[in-house]
């Protein structure tokens, strides 16, 4: 998974899905340092999940009723290189 994250850090998405990637990365970091094994860390993880993609499932809503979703990261305005200088990435 670290490799996937490394790849999309190197070649960032140009769409709003980039915000989901940034949230995903934040969740990965929490798991990586095993912070999700603490109560506070798990709450943090759920707060990220609440803003990720379609948000919390009904089951998670019920399990974590006091959760506040984190705000979604800003996606920079996309710029496209002109048609002629486009590289293959």
């Amino acid at each position, binding site marked *: 998974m670290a490799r996937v994250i490394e790849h999309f850090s190197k070649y960032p998405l*140009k*769409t*709003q899905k980039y915000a989901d990637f940034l949230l995903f990365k934040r969740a990965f970091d929490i798991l990586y340092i095993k912070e999700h094994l603490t109560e506070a860390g798990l709450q943090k993880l759920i707060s990220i999940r609440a803003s990720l993609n379609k948000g919390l499932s009904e089951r998670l809503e019920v399990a974590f009723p006091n959760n506040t979703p984190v705000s979604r990261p800003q996606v920079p*305005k*996309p*710029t*496209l290189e*002109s*048609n002629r200088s*486009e590289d*293959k990435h």
Partner: protein
Amino acid sequence: MAGFVTGEGCFFIKTSKSKTHKLGMSVALNFIVVQNIRDAYLLESFVQFFGCGSFSTVEKSGIGRFAVSNFSHVVEIVIPLFEEFAILGAKAKDFEDFKEAAELVKSKAHLNKEGLDKILLVKSRMNFKR
């Protein structure tokens, strides 16, 4: 761009009934990319990127749409770009069919019955009918 269009783009042969055409049918080639309206800004910038086409929104369905429907723009800009930067996967076949139809229209074959039938055959076997 080629990667994005492989996933999100559409090459479409548009045929419409027409009273002003001898064969009763007009043929147009459309290149279209549709996204959720949240990425409207990106699609809008396609107009500049391609140097052709137009951007529109359909508020009701919450989508933004980039389309190139001018035939010379399709033939001189869109097709050459994706010949240089290949469309991959299953959509490569749709692009090939699209190119075949473009050649037929370029040679004015769509103006006679036989050529039009050929184009309709190509259309009938591409995209979701594949």
